[in-house]
């Protein structure tokens, strides 16, 4: 049972990382649908650099940079040139999938030594909990840490307030003298860095491989998680664990011979996401209140 719970936690980590990054971008009013593409760029960078250098931590750093740079491309178009964010984000996903495949071509079939487990002294000796939460890898610890920091940042700091102001009404924020584009640019790049790290988790921890399109839709789930969580960091954690749990449960169900079509079981995680989105959207006022009011709107600053 412990091993299953641990598998669920590991499956959830990339979702937490990517959703945390996207949360910040969306809170600043930018809808970046390119998470999947940025994750793929992170994954291929992590694999390539680790296989060249032999050090997975270099791979991790490379993934963060690759994600950040990919997000930078998005920022140039969607912020600098004020292109449509939805179209640009979709283009970024397609671009990321193609470019990562090209970069990764020589690495297909190779293998690397991924991140090792870091045992937290004392705490790891706790019964049950110790084995589950204190014998993880650096990125898993980082995902929880970043989620906490982002929560604190948004609710308890002045910079967080400015970020939310920009996302809720960019004209007002602009009139108050805040640089809307600069804030959004930083937020988007932060989102990219986190998505890159999320992508890195696949080859560095989950399976030491590179294969084209290996994120297999996890970027889209991360995007859905942000809405699912109604832009609240704590709920991202719940949503990610729920999604990870269902993903693993469908495999367990098959292993135990539950009589259900495996195609249906494979569909379950996505079905659950849609169901929860419908439930959340039932209370329209709540959703509207939480959503950044200027999400996806183009801002053209006046000099």
């Amino acid at each position: 049972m412990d091993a299953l719970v641990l598998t669920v936690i590991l499956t959830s980590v990339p979702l937490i990382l990517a959703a945390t990054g996207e949360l910040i971008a969306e809170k600043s009013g930018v809808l970046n649908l390119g998470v999947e593409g940025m994750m793929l760029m992170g994954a291929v960078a992590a694999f390539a650099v680790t296989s060249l250098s032999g050090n997975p931590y270099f791979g991790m750093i490379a993934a963060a940079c690759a994600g950040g740079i990919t997000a930078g491309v998005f920022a140039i178009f969607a912020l600098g040139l004020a292109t449509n964010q939805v179209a640009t984000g979709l283009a970024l996903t397609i671009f990321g999938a193609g470019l990562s495949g090209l970069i990764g071509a020589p690495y297909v079939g190779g293998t690397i030594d991924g991140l090792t487990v870091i045992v937290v002294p004392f705490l790891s000796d706790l019964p049950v909990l110790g084995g589950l939460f204190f014998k993880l890898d650096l990125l898993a610890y980082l995902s929880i840490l970043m989620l906490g920091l982002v929560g604190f940042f948004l609710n308890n700091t002045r910079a967080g307030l400015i970020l939310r102001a920009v996302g809720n009404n960019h004209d007002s924020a602009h009139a108050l003298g805040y640089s809307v584009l600069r804030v959004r640019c930083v937020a988007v790049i932060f989102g990219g860095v986190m998505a890159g790290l999320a992508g890195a988790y696949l080859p560095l921890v989950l399976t030491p491989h590179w294969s084209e399109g290996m994120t297999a839709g996890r970027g889209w789930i991360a995007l859905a998680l942000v809405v699912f969580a109604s832009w609240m960091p704590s709920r991202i954690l719940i949503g990610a664990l729920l999604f990870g749990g269902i993903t693993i449960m469908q495999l367990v169900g098959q292993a135990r011979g539950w009589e259900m079509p495996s195609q249906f079981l494979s569909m379950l995680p996505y079905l659950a996401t849609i169901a929860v989105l419908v439930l959340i959207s039932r209370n329209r006022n709540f959703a509207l209140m939480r959503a950044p009011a200027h999400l996806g709107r183009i801002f053209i600053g006046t000099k």
Partner: protein
Amino acid sequence: MKLNKFVILLGIVVLAGLAFIMSSQKAPEKAAGVADDKKVKVGFVYLTTPGDHGWTYAHEVGRQDVIARFGDKVETTYIENVPEGPDAARVIRDLAKQGNDIIFTTSFGYMDPTLKVAKEFPEIKFEHITGYKRAPNMATGNIRFYEGRYVQGVVAGLMTKSNKIGYIASFPIPEVIQGINAFGLGLRSVNKDAEVSVIWVNSWYDPVKEADAAKVHIAEGADILAQHTDSPAMLQTAEKAGVYGFGQSSDMKAFAPKAQLFSSVNNWGIYYINKIQALIDGSWTTGEGPDHWAGNTWAGMADNFLVLSAFENMPDDVAKAAQKAADDIKSGANKIFTGPIRDNTGAEKVPAGKTLNDGELFTTLDYYVEGIVGKIPG
């Protein structure tokens, strides 16, 4: 207006005439065989990249065998990452237009596209791997993969301590069901208590999902893993967790030196070389297959189409038992699907003394044999 219509009509007649002349000029060129001074051009369509170290890698090894055998008498081209389905027709047609003399399409899902293009290019030979649709210029070839899986079942039955075997499967198609059932028959021939649970990942190549499925099997108590998917992810997971497993399509020892018991290796080179030689000699035919479903060529361990890598990480007596099982299959002493065979509800499906013929292996296996848990999906 009248003139216009006349001009168009005339144009059509002229074009049709030209097309007729050109096609009638082309036809006699390639009546039989390939002239000595001409290079044979061979095209391959790959499902993934040779870097998958599984299915496509095995085909790439076959292509290298062809080059080693024929040297500069052949010119080979391959196209990788070709999605199964209608889009494949475009790729196959491209290869045909480039003047390839024979084209091998290496996955089940290329069946209809290959047939379609084969009809458009009657002078080119097509070889479809693992399918059952044919044309006068389109043959099918397949390997008896299930023979290796029977031996895997024997080894698994002797090696397991928990009596729980985890099997990772791709899609519920005949070839995969044959494999699972052959594994079950091998397992139960040596161990009446062991059980196999199957996880379908609905993909041929998805390392993350394959690894997840392997982790779940191990968490559920499995100590031996088998796979009918193409990446080495399952074996790597097994290596990490300290359990054992079998490699698929190619020798995967490099990925799991302590966990791999053996791999069933697909040896396509022998098939490719035979068919290309026949083309050069002018003796190429589709061949009369054993059966509609099984294809024109369906060979296994006896013909070296399927090769088992070295038996490793197991005690000597287990390795001996595995060798004996393999020898019995090669000699024909063990036909594997010979009754009595019961399904996993206990109902007798094949009476004692009867052996399923090749066609029946494709059309009647809609159940799991004893020892396999659950039901075939879909």
